[in-house]
């Protein structure tokens, strides 16, 4: 069934088709419609889930953790300051190996107060142990939401799906909504590996001494490493059933490209358009879209970017005092390549706080990159008023 829906409702549909059992959320612009729609689905019986209104995002995640500890499939959604308020609980979810799925709508952090898109909120949570999957279209949002549960419950890690404020959250696109039966076959009921059991009472989250903590962290790291392969397998099965896949990393017209753009989120769509135009002029420009940020797809990026002469990484985010986070991660991932295949990494900070990243901006980035064999500086800010 095709429906024209906004990105936020694509999330709601995904959580509904995944048969989330507990939804606990606190509203925040631009996430509100996600949980608004879910609350209506719960109220009118389309979704048989317990909907918990809570007093804060911290509590929303705490409730998801509690629900997950009983073996339930838990879901929430948030954005920006709400995600920041969850921070402590994000560690609890990952350290407790709770396969919770959360949608985060990328929104800038204040002050200055700003409700528009910016990836700094989710990227600030990169060390919490959550898998992070960035989306480009509403179809990808819906598909990723459902796949995220399968992935999370396979590796026992929480998964954050990430989408741009307004460009996706509030923009309607045609979305193919899978049949419930087909989704049920893809995603059976959760079989919890660890859960509270009143007939064998134990508590989760007790003190762990130095003699065990590292081993537990190692297992978390190993689970993250496993996630790359598991995600591929999940996507392959999704493709078999529904005919679509996205890839942890997607190469677009990247073959024999001398310059590769590295993008994430909705900037990718604009970049596809610009790349097409450059290719029409026989310019060797291609695109690599990074969907999976955690675990970082190091090997995949080395394979795709190694051999290109130049790489331009676009960051709609900022780690103040360092620069764009994707470019920083990409540089680190490629550092171990032999010098002859290691491309020059040009970092560009663009579109913070929802500023438009237009084809003109991307053309400027391509031209400036090609004009200098070595990066002008680690991060060039483009589209900044004097």
């Amino acid at each position, binding site marked *: 069934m095709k429906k024209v829906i906004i990105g936020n409702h694509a999330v709601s549909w995904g959580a509904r088709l995944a048969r989330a059992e507990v939804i606990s959320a606190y509203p925040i612009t631009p996430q509100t419609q996600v949980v608004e729609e879910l609350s209506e689905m719960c109220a009118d019986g389309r979704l048989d889930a317990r909907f918990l209104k809570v007093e804060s995002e911290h509590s929303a995640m705490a409730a998801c953790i509690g629900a997950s500890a009983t073996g339930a499939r838990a879901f929430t959604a948030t954005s920006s300051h709400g995600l920041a308020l969850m921070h402590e609980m994000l560690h609890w979810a990952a350290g407790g190996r709770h396969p919770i799925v959360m949608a985060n709508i990328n929104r800038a952090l204040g002050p200055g107060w700003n409700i528009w898109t910016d990836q700094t909120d989710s990227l600030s949570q990169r060390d919490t142990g959550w898998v992070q999957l960035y989306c480009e279209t509403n179809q990808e949002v819906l598909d990723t939401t459902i796949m995220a549960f399968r992935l999370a419950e396979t590796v026992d890690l929480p998964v954050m799906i990430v989408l741009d404020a307004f460009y996706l959250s509030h923009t309607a696109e045609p979305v193919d909504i899978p049949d419930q039966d087909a989704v049920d076959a893809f995603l059976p009921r959760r079989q919890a590996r*660890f859960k509270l059991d009143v007939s064998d009472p134990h508590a989760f989250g007790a003190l762990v001494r130095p003699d065990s903590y590292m081993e537990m962290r190692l297992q978390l790291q190993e689970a993250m490493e496993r996630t790359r392969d598991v995600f591929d397998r999940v996507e392959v099965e999704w493709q078999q059933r529904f005919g679509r896949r996205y890839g942890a990393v997607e190469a677009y017209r990247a073959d024999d490209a001398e310059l590769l753009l590295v993008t994430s989120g909705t900037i990718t769509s604009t970049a596809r358009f610009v790349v097409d135009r450059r290719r029409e002029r026989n310019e060797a420009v291609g695109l690599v879209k990074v969907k999976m940020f955690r675990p970082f797809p190091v090997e995949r990026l080395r394979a795709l970017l190694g051999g290109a002469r130049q790489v331009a990484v676009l960051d709609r985010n900022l780690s103040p005092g360092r620069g764009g986070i994707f470019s920083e991660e990409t540089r680190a991932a490629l550092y171990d390549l032999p010098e002859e295949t290691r491309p020059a990494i040009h970092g560009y900070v663009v579109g913070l706080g929802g500023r438009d990243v237009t084809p003109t901006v991307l053309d400027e980035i391509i031209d400036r990159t090609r004009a200098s064999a070595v990066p002008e500086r680690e991060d060039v800010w483009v589209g900044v008023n004097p």
Partner: protein
Amino acid sequence: MPERRVSPVAVSQTSTLVTKTGSWKYIRPLYQDRVAPCNAGCPVGIDIEGYMSLLREGRWDEARDLLLLENPLPATTGRVCHHPCETSCNRRQFDEPVSIHAVERMLGDYALEHPPSLTRAAERSEEVGIVGSGPAGLACAYHLARLGYGVTVFDAAPEPGGMLRLGIPEYRLPRRLLDGEIERIRALGVSFQCGVRIGQDVPWRSFLGLFDAVFVSTGAHLGKDLGLQKENVAGVRAGLAFLKAVNRGERPELGRRVVVVGGGNTAIDCARTAMRLGAETVVLYRRTSAEMPAIPDEIEEAEREGVQLVFLAAPVAFHAEDGRLRAVECVRMRLGDADASGRRRPIPVPDDRFTIEVDTVLSAIGENADLAGLPPELAVQESGVAADALGTTSRAGVFAGGDVTNAARTVADALGAGKRAAVGIDRYLRRLSDDGPNGTGLPALRFGNGNISMARWRDADPVHRINALNELVEFDDLNTSHFRRVRRRRDDRLSLAESRGGFAEVNLGLDHEDAVSEALRCFNCGVCNHCDLCLIFCPDVAISRRANGGGYDIALEYCKGCGVCAEECPRGALTLTREGL
């Protein structure tokens, strides 16, 4: 892969029961029932919250029995009481007060349709004589009978009921209901001797010798004079005497225009009755509607029926022709400073006068007790018999209550005084100390600062109360986020045409379903009704249900003293105290 020794997640070796987190707390919850403001606000001393709670659980017979434990005349009070319980109802500050009177009325009617078998305590040999069969006398007789005493009630009127029968119009209180409620008292073994005026037909001295104790509740029947010239001209009548005549079945000739002077219930009763006899009726009151002591619903009904209310006016002269009243001359008033009653004093505006043509004036500015007809050597204070809270007078063995004392003159206050006097007489006859049979003093018998509870006096509260604390629950003690706003049901009323055309009951109360809905609106202030919210919210799972629905146990060895249970309790049955206090 080698088998891992360490679990991927932090799991305890055993359950958390070994961790006695209770040692962390510095505050602890107190699971104690407290007093609902309706109970404290009821002059009768009815456990209103208790019967609402029983009705919530569908326990009709127990609700009826609990009501009858404290109030012998619920079908009557459900109709004629000014229901101060609703004024004190905490729900007033949330949306609208619970329609307590309508629930009481339904339960009172239920008690007449489904009579309980009322019990008497162990029989006692003492005999008590009660003079006056109004609400105070009936209440005293009823409670004493249930306490096991022999009781005889005397009344000068041909039938018992006092002001309920003589003064209150039939359209407010159908007599078959009053008869039914008095019959229930008779069935308890109380004897009635009507048509006998003690002090006249039987001398007080010999009367007092017949009984071990006597309760004087002769009421207040002497209408106050207006203090104007020509007050005895034909056409000027005492309002109460007029009501009594109509209630006897007479239909006095009033003429076309009637002016009622006064602002109390007698005045409104006179006006509505005169209107039913075909007169155009005006009520003249010297203050404003805000100071009017009559029950607001009655005032509203009077206006609806066409009674005209004239405020800030008082009669100053009657004009007669041929010995017959023709007009009443009035002076305009204004309000000055507050007087002793707390109401603003009316002051005449000297030259602002007007005249109303009138055929009959009914004066209803209050009644006095007939102090001349009292037993000898009985101390009098102000305009009534001097009596303490339990009705004790200056004469040993003689008790008094109701309108003959200086109490507030309402049916509810009279019923409450009769109950207190029954306790006073019981205590006197059993020669008990002030502490009472269950070791508690008078304050402990009261609902908060309200009237005393017969259940507590008899130490036989049928309602399960958890460590009851005699402390009032105020609105701020409630967590109203757990309540929904629900409109108060309005009483059904007879159509205007039917109301004005006769003496059929005007207020029809609520139908069964709506009355139950009103009972469900009750917050059960201060009293645990097993809503489970404390148990649901306790983050330490330290609260558990007791077997047999007897409330909750709090495992203090695990309670961390977070206070969430007390915060979430919607009705103030959980409070916090500092640890060690």
